[in-house]
């Protein structure tokens, strides 16, 4: 007995519509590859490159509660804005972000990161200073590496003090692609 795609889709939609989910997620194809996009009642909680959905569902369940289900509708707005961003039609994201899983310093850094404008670069040291710990550039690097919502919180705009790209959780190629898209780097 196999559940038809239609019946399956109806259940996934009803589960979200009734507000029964801790986390809803969907996979979404973009120019930087397939992203797993997850949302809670509090907002976007994860964008993940090259995700293994099963492992991610486990992780999200530990962080936010085990009612984790693939369900497209709650992620529609985030996916639409990402499409616009990649098409060059959007410079700022208008999405609430769920940072409940981040620790105090991490949250402060991510909130500062959110203020770095489209197409501009900043450094790990600058961000550390703005978050109130000028000597914590290395810790900022760790926070960037664990950024739960890359692209939307633009850790790709953070580079080393010499201007080198340094690193990116999704790989340096993607960092370069995003910065070229924004016109921050020459293609």
């Amino acid at each position, binding site marked *: 007995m*196999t559940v038809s795609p239609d019946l399956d889709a*109806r*259940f996934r939609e009803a*589960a979200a519509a*009734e507000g029964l989910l801790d986390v809803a997620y969907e996979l979404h194809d973009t120019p930087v590859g397939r992203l797993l996009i997850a949302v809670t009642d509090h907002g976007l909680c994860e964008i993940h490159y090259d995700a293994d959905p099963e492992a991610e*569902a*486990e992780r999200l*369940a530990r962080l936010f509660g*085990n009612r*984790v289900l693939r369900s497209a509708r709650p992620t529609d707005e985030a996916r639409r804005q990402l499409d616009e961003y990649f098409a060059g039609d959007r410079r700022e994201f208008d999405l609430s972000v769920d940072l409940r899983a981040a620790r105090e310093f991490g949250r402060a850094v991510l909130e500062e990161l959110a203020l770095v404008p489209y197409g501009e670069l900043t450094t790990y040291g600058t961000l550390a200073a703005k978050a109130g710990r000028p000597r914590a550039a290395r810790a900022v690097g760790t926070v960037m590496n664990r950024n739960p919502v890359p692209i939307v919180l633009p850790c790709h705009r953070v580079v080393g003090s010499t201007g080198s790209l340094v690193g990116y959780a999704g790989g340096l190629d993607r960092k370069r692609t995003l910065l070229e898209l924004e016109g921050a780097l020459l293609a």
Partner: protein
Amino acid sequence: MMEAVAVPPFERFYEEHRNAVLGQLRRLLGRDAADDAFQETFLRALRSYSKLKHGEHLRAWALTIARNVAIDTRRREQITSADVPDLESVDEPLPYEELRRLTSKLPEKERAAVFLRYGYDLSYEDIGSALGSSAEAARQATSSGVRRLRRKELR
């Protein structure tokens, strides 16, 4: 001591047991009613999922919920069919045998709607609630049944 099996993310629970649940519901209710009951089963499971203490025997748990949903579905059907008045209590029904013969080839839903409208003189609202649909859907089913009968008569 063995550690309790952790409750998996709902996604995994659903993926692993949905086919078995649908199979059981179809056996108990038939194909059409099973689809509605399927959704209700997993919505019920979701409502109590965060209260689960461990992840053991989840298939048995899912099938138990499904069985309860099937029982509730049956009970609802019995109540609605009990709402339909007895033949004897209706003043001027179309002769029952004639109506039965006339409508015997109609699709099931239209047949029931035509029967209730012209055999029992029920309002579309009552027909809708007897058939588990809206008054408007009942009206449409009735009129498309009647159209179908007319087309047959013309031939």
